[in-house]
């Protein structure tokens, strides 16, 4: 990848904290230019530590990473010029207004004076904060802070954008509007987006490709569809109207797949072949005269992928790890903080 590209290449990246675990343990990944890459994992998996290394805030212990063709360890200043980042905590000064934040950021990035105001207004409008732009950030809601954070990250027209859990703690509406904006950045402006998340839905809907990280290692990588296809076939769940015919219904279903747990009185099988068997199943119930109260087709989710790869469900998987994360040490190098 050359310096003209917007991609990310990571090779064997390691971050070991003093007296702590390997927060990131030899990960390798490639993000293509203009792609949205979802970095999915539970709390404490090493997502933020990875972002801190890729954004030059934390030096890697081993391995290498190139962002837009530039080595993060040796060409930090150049990397910072071409990236934008919205880190986990929306890092804002509660005493400044939204507009003042834009002024500060544009000035530090060296935008010419006349462009500073224009650029600030433009981005504030773009993230829908025009009405609130002269209010102090201390009074903003979580969603507003995130949006301002995103606007600040875009001030200098970055080619690569890092978003560290951008929607954690947001209400569904704020989340949807942030997704919309991120998608637009990627598709319309060609920005490469590296996004960490602990939400399956977010990775599934937003990302072109997903990397699943657990305990500092990449457990799986691919497009959401490919990952789901890799671990398996869909399942079918039915609920007969007449409970007395449950046994008959079960016998029919088992001809098409193997039983899997189902909710309540329903019956469920993982299909042997795939979705194309659905018609045959419906016909079999029809010819046996068994009336169904419900029939559902369940595609595998990324949680199923996570389960298959790590042996655990994503939800609640992180607590044990996050409790073990080291506290900030006195060494400034340690300060940027673990995931």
């Amino acid at each position, binding site marked *: 990848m050359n310096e*003209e590209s*917007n991609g990310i290449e990571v090779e064997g990246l390691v971050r070991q904290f003093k007296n702590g675990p390997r927060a990131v343990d030899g990960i390798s990944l490639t993000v293509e*230019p*203009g792609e949205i890459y979802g970095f999915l994992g539970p709390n404490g998996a090493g997502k933020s530590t990875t972002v801190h290394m890729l*954004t*030059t*805030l934390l*030096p890697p212990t081993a391995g290498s990473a190139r962002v*837009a063709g530039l080595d993060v*360890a040796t060409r*930090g*200043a150049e990397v*910072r*010029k071409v990236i*934008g*980042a919205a*880190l986990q*905590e*929306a*890092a*804002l*000064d509660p*005493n*400044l207004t939204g507009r*003042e934040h834009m*002024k*500060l*950021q544009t*000035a*530090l*990035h*060296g*935008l010419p004076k006349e462009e500073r105001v224009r650029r600030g207004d*433009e*981005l504030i*409008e*773009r*993230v*829908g904060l025009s009405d609130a732009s002269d209010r*102090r950030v201390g009074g903003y809601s979580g969603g507003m802070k995130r949006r301002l954070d995103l606007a*600040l990250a*875009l001030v*200098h*027209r*970055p*080619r690569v*954008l890092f978003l560290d859990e951008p929607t954690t703690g947001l209400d569904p*509406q704020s989340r949807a509007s*942030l997704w*919309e*904006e991120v998608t637009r*950045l990627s598709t*319309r*402006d*060609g*920005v490469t987006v590296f996004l960490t998340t602990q939400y399956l839905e977010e990775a599934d809907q937003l990302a072109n490709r997903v990397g699943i990280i657990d305990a500092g290692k990449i457990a799986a990588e691919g497009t959401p569809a490919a990952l789901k296809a890799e671990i398996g076939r869909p399942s079918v769940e039915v609920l007969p109207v007449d409970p007395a015919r449950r046994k008959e219904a079960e016998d029919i279903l088992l001809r098409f797949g193997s039983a899997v747990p189902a909710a309540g009185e329903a019956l469920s099988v993982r299909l042997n072949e795939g979705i194309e068997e659905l018609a045959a199943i419906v016909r079999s119930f029809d010819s046996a005269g068994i009336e169904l109260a419900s029939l559902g087709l369940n595609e595998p989710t990324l949680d199923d992928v996570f389960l298959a790869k790590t042996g655990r469900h994503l939800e609640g998987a992180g607590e044990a790890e996050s409790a073990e994360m080291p506290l*900030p040490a*006195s060494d*400034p190098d340690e*300060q940027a903080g673990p995931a």
Partner: protein
Amino acid sequence: MSGAVATAGVGVADPGAPDPGPSPLPIQISAMASRSIKRLIRQPALVIPSVIFPLFLLAVNAGGLNAATHIPGFPTDSYLTFAIGFTFIQAAIFSTMGAGQSLAQDIENGFFSRLVLTPMRPTALMAGQLAGLVLLGQFQALLYLSVGLAAGANFEAGVAGYFVLAALVSIISIGFGGIGLIMAIRTGSGEAVQGMFPLMFVLLFFSSMTLPRNLIEQDWYRFLATINPVSYLIEAIRSLFIYGWDAEALALGFGIAAIVAVLSITFAARSLKGRMLR
């Protein structure tokens, strides 16, 4: 964001887009300074105590210790005139903790990371942080001088002395502000910076703050006051009030303030570089 109208290209997928280049240092400094001043003005709850408390201590000491002026050899018959010099130093040192703390807060809440990701130079960050401090110091100096004069203190050095006072207070603010910054940069924790407070108290109290050094009876205390640089800062300002122009006291005061400033700023800059650029 819903309903927002996209108006302009935001990213530059086109790598050939013009690079604005690094922002000129004066622009960075003024942007950072303006932020630090705004921050100060908008948090009066943090600023007011550091302004009021030294005044309170002055009032209490001037009232309670007036009897000390009867000690043979005491340089003035007004304890207020004697004690007011300490007020400036106390205020300067108190507010430096504030500078450290606000930087530590930035580090803790991630704002510092945002700044590090811009092409901002360490000089701009430090100068910006210290600008607010110097401004506050000047405000305090003017306030204390006015209050002191109104309450009957004597300012022997006159109008020219005010400018000397203002200059010395600025250097002291920068010097001790630098110490606050070093603590913040090295620990990244507001609590740790706050932990410096007792140390600052030691520096302030084991000095010639309440009595001239030659009138301190206890040898160990006089020794501490003599080796404590803060004594000379107090005595330089005090000399403007009591004697007018005491070249030796002023030279010692300015000299020590300058040394503290140079050392602390150098170390702060070095620590900051280590944290910012890699």
